């Protein structure tokens, strides 16, 4: 077999793929969050809609977005395959089993497959609700200073008036927080980046990220539900 293929299909290679796509998704979330925070501008969606237009028409951003779809798919499919293989590796299970961990959350770490599945379902619903509507041109148009943009804000604002959806969104963010609490530092360990001097900082950053980013995401629908009627 070609050496590169052999690497990619080895246990470590497969984990490296998980790590690299994971880090890409971590970076993406920051950009996504910065975009979403513009929903809080009390301008009837102007800033948000113009931003959404830029993100869907700029050729560079568009190229990166294809990479993003690919990453989500690879991370999910590969993650699912690894999960299955790992369950099979245990064989007959234990009657009693306690999992302790060092420097990570044992519960999150041993349930990455379940957490990931919930996140994947969330992403599908999320994409259907906003992204697909935008792609299918199901949105009304808005006009700002002579420039037209699809009014994505309109459907977001409606969704966030629905208490059920807000709760679903907040719970999904909590699941993402757990996934990241382990995933962030795990991505670095898989790449071999464990160092006496830097690892404590990576772990700290991972914890801050895992709490702050999902919390800010969750804050937006809650705020809009409560204060932007």
């Amino acid at each position, binding site marked *: 077999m070609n050496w590169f293929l052999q690497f990619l299909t080895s246990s470590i*290679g497969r984990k490296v793929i998980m790590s690299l796509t994971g880090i890409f998704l971590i970076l993406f979330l920051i950009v996504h969050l910065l975009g979403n925070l513009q929903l809080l501008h009390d301008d009837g969606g102007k800033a948000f809609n113009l931003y959404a237009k830029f993100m869907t028409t700029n050729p560079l951003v568009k190229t990166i977005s294809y990479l993003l779809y690919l990453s989500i798919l690879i991370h999910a499919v590969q993650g699912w395959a690894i999960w299955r293989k790992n369950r099979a590796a245990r064989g007959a299970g234990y009657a009693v089993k306690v999992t302790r961990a060092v420097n990570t959350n044992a519960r999150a770490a041993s349930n990455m497959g379940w957490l990931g599945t919930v996140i994947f379902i969330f992403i599908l619903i999320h994409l259907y609700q906003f992204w697909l509507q935008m792609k299918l041109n199901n949105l009304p148009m808005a006009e700002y200073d002579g420039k037209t943009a699809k009014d994505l804000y309109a459907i977001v604002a409606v969704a966030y008036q629905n208490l059920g959806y807000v709760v679903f969104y907040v719970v999904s963010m909590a699941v993402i927080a757990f996934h990241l609490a382990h995933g962030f530092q795990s991505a670095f360990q898989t790449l071999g980046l464990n160092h006496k001097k830097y690892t404590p900082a990576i772990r700290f950053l991972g914890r801050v990220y895992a709490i702050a980013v999902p919390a800010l995401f969750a804050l937006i629908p809650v705020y809009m539900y409560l204060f932007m009627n």
Partner: protein
Amino acid sequence: MKLTLKIWRQGGKYKGELVTYQLNDVNPHMSFLEMLDVLNEELIAKKESPVAFEHDCREGICGTCSMVINGYPHGPQAKTTTCQLHMRHFKDGDTIVIEPFRARAFPVVRDLVVDRAAFDRIIQAGGYISVNTGQAQDANSTPIEKDLSAHAFDAAECIGCGACVAACPNASAMLFVSAKVSHLALLPQGKPEAARRVQNMVKQMDAEGFGMCSNVTACEAECPKGISVTNIARLNREFISSEFGSETQV
């Protein structure tokens, strides 16, 4: 001490089930294995088959005394093998569940005994140095940086017991393999074969059907020798750099 034991029995008349035994007079100073010896004496006296379990040194260095005690490989005591675990860490009236290490790559032979030959095959794939490293004075004349020799020594503490596999939710052997790879790769004598070694050992590890590491770190938490997951990061580094940075391909 009075104890209720629930022990996995497999082989002979047992299809594979937890069987309950009562022990009424356990001395708290006994080791866990001595407690099982007492149970086996009673079983033999009753003409029943004794519980099969592995043991050899009984001083924490051979790594054979594998069993999962109340959900913990080698019991709940940190950095302690089963043979070094004493009954004083349990309470009078306790129920103790004892199971074999569970991994598809470690098939159960009988009761608590599992076949860990998969580890031997991983070592055979590359866990050695094939050059003559000379006599003691030759080792002393090879300068090795203090931190490196300390890390190599820490990794060399691995006794190949397999508790890391038993503890890991993925039944991954990465901690064991990383300890063996690290201990040789860090030293000058191990360097010439390092690229080939890591590829061969990982290949064998994958072929044996162990799971893939997801950095749960349960291995380090349960390892009786406290082998650190920093070795797993080193294994990943060694593997990635030997794949991308050397001409070696196994």
